[in-house]
């Protein structure tokens, strides 16, 4: 029987604060989690939940207060683990005096490739992340999204079995996000395990076999995205325009008008009835989109606070 890709057991991290290091903040609280080979796992949580802390612990950048973890069956303090993993830190930053090509070549030296293999690989991955044309530009001249792309390239350059990505989509434009989703999806096809953190529900929903939700260092739940309450649609939003001189039917009195356009929220089961009415009064339908509680609402609910009114997904998927 082969070991799980990632096995985290009772992992806890306390940060010491204050001048005398006498105050303690628990950033991760007895996290226990098992991720199987070939799984794509989304690690969700609001700011300060402890996602980055978890990843840094797994990478051996910081040390746990208590608890253990294994990757590919090896304890995380065994540096041999690192031959099997790739890591994209949050807001990655690299040696800015190197070019993208030099940087990737440098990292490739820590895997056992000869110089021809290195060259081929570096070129292939530069291409993959869309940086072929900027390959010989010094990284100090790179934009945030370009750095993010270099970061992704270095994380997967050596065909790692398990890939850890801390907010892989952050700083990317819509095309970049789509590309990264494709990359992650391809990693899955190749049978690799991906563990990534994000705030963006739609990314997790589209990619993950399972997600885990972390709030204030505590794991609140793990499951398939479809099982999560917050993923359920609880209303449909219709955006429409009325022809001049025409009035709204009384049933649509709740519609709000913004910038000459009207929008209304209706329960899913009333969607078709409402659309019929709109057709009758000659309205032009601009869009119909599902309204879901945001991740924030879900987190607030988990934290025992009252959620605010639902807003469309796009509002949070910055």
């Amino acid at each position, binding site marked *: 029987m082969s070991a799980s890709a990632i096995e985290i057991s009772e992992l806890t991290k306390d940060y010491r604060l204050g001048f005398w290091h006498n105050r303690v903040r628990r950033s991760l609280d007895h996290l226990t989690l098992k991720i199987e080979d070939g799984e794509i796992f989304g690690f969700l949580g609001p700011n300060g939940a402890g996602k980055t802390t978890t990843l*840094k612990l797994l*990478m*051996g*950048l*910081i*040390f746990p207060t208590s608890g253990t973890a294994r990757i590919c069956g090896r304890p995380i303090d065994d*540096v*041999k683990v*690192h*031959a099997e*993993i*790739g*890591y*994209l*830190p949050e*807001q*990655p*930053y*690299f*040696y800015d*005096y*190197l070019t993208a090509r030099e940087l990737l070549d*440098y*990292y490739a*030296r*820590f*895997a*056992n490739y000869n110089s021809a293999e290195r060259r081929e690989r570096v070129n292939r991955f530069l291409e993959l992340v869309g940086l072929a044309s900027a390959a010989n530009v010094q990284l100090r001249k790179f934009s945030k999204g370009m750095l993010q792309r270099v*970061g992704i390239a*270095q*994380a997967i350059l050596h065909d790692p079995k398990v890939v850890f990505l801390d907010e892989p989509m952050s700083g990317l434009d819509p095309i970049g996000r789509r590309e990264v989703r494709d990359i992650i999806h391809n990693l899955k096809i190749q049978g690799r395990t991906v563990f990534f953190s994000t705030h963006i529900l739609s990314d997790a929903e589209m990619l993950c076999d399972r997600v885990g939700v972390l709030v204030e260092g505590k794991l609140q739940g793990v499951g398939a995205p479809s099982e999560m309450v917050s993923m359920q649609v609880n209303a449909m939003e219709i955006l429409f325009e009325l022809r001049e001189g025409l009035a709204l039917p009384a049933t649509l009195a709740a519609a709000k008008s913004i910038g000459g356009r009207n929008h209304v929220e209706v329960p899913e089961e009333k969607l078709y009835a409402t659309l019929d009415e709109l057709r009758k009064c000659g309205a032009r339908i601009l869009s119909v989109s599902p309204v879901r509680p945001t991740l924030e609402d879900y987190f607030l609910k988990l934290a025992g606070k009252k959620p605010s009114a639902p807003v469309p997904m796009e509002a949070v998927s910055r």
Partner: protein
Amino acid sequence: MSATTGPVAINTFREAVRDRVLYNLIFFALLMMGAAILVGEISIGIERLVIIDLGLTAISIFGLVMSVFLGVGLVSKEIEKRTLYTLLAKPIERWQFLLGKYAGLLITLAVNTAAMTLGLAAALFYVGRPFVRSDASILIAIYFILLEFALITALALFFSCFTSPMLSTLFTIGVFVAGVFAADIRNFGALAKNPALKGIATLVYYLVPNFQNFNAIAAAGHGDHIPASLVGQNTMYAVLYVAVLVLASSAIFSRRNLK
């Protein structure tokens, strides 16, 4: 060098080159040229002494400044800029990283010193003196200077593993100054009446490297013979001292939580 330490060392050297650290060579070249021309004008038989004295002193000052300021930044800069996160996620132990950074700065210092040595040779050539056998002492003096750089860099690296770059700089300079006056500190200890003071002076004397032992500039200027025993003794001392510091640095750095 191991498969992981080597690339780190080379990259450290490359950083120094790209960050234009070697530009200090231009100042050195100007200094040597100026001195050679000036001394050539006077020419009362002390050209050799002046040029060698000035050249070696400049080599040592330029290098010491580099050792301290680049030394304290070796690790702290990588932590501050978070370039270390991705590197340490590769199959490399923290001590290998540390050793690579240290070796990289030594390579930089060695290349820098070699270039300056050529400059010094050119200046000596300009003042019109044929090279003689006793000039070997100049090379030995330069070797001692390099050992000094190795010691200072190791100290800077060591301090930077547990304090801020600012404090590391102060501590390193402090140890250097104490090391230059090591003999005086010992004499002070011998004369002191207060037993506590005596103890402290003796302790400091044994803890800091005695940098006077590494100063052969005057001997080189006068073309004095430098005994082989001193070369062996200094080499042994530097190697041991550096080994202890690098081991201690590794032990501290390996336990450190990276911010």
